[in-house]
């Protein structure tokens, strides 16, 4: 049986994938007022997962990441839409947003914006869509 020699690829993947995942979370959280955002964060996370698919094979990654990505699309959409809908109930125009400053231990003063919740919804949707589409094509073979 053909066995690929991908030692370098696997070793670097185990390193790079985590950097990618960490950086994508940073992008997601920074996105509401500096470069980044849910869309880019989602794409980066899915590229990390894709890298793991390529290095270790689909079965193994599915075992360590038992996530139903189709469900993730729906949850993400629900979160994103809900942030808009909440404004209907409190009587402000649809999609209005607000922000506040909180002081946390260690991190200090942080800005928390409702736009971030929307970004998280987008993040989950993009992640779900990308992985679903790639796995639909890849699983066929």
């Amino acid at each position: 049986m053909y066995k690929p020699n991908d030692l370098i690829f696997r070793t670097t993947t185990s390193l790079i994938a985590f950097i990618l995942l960490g950086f994508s979370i940073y992008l997601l959280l920074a996105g509401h007022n500096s470069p980044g955002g849910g869309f880019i964060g989602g794409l980066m996370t899915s590229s990390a997962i894709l890298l793991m698919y390529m290095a270790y094979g689909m079965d193994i990654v599915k075992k360590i990441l038992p996530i139903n990505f189709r469900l993730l699309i729906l949850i993400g959409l629900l979160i994103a839409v809900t942030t808009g809908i909440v404004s209907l109930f409190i009587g402000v125009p649809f999609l209005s947003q607000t922000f506040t400053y909180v002081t946390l231990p260690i991190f200090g003063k942080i800005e928390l914006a409702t736009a971030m919740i929307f970004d998280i919804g987008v993040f989950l949707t993009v992640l779900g869509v990308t992985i679903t589409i790639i796995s639909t094509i890849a699983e066929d073979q």
Partner: protein
Amino acid sequence: MEIIISILAGILVATGVYNLLQKQLLRIVIGTVLLSHGAHLFILTMGKLKRGQPPILEEGIVQYTDPLPQALILTSIVISFGITSLLLVLAYRTANENETDNMEQLRGKTNE
């Protein structure tokens, strides 16, 4: 600068159209991707390529970048990302199901 980017957008559209007119499905998909890139670059050019402060209403800021084209492009990129991925799956399924990726052979007959 605007002229160069406009020409680049034009080249992208031209290659896109060329690829769109090919018979092979994958080339057609690539053609649509190139076309949408051309369109996005074009929006950016239309908002005037200039450097400057972010567009925040404050005293003393005269030169600021136009945020709207960037917002439009971002939206448009997300949409074309969605459509391209959908088109790829569709093209793959079509090629599999019909056992050809040649548009000439995907013509079809009446009354099926």
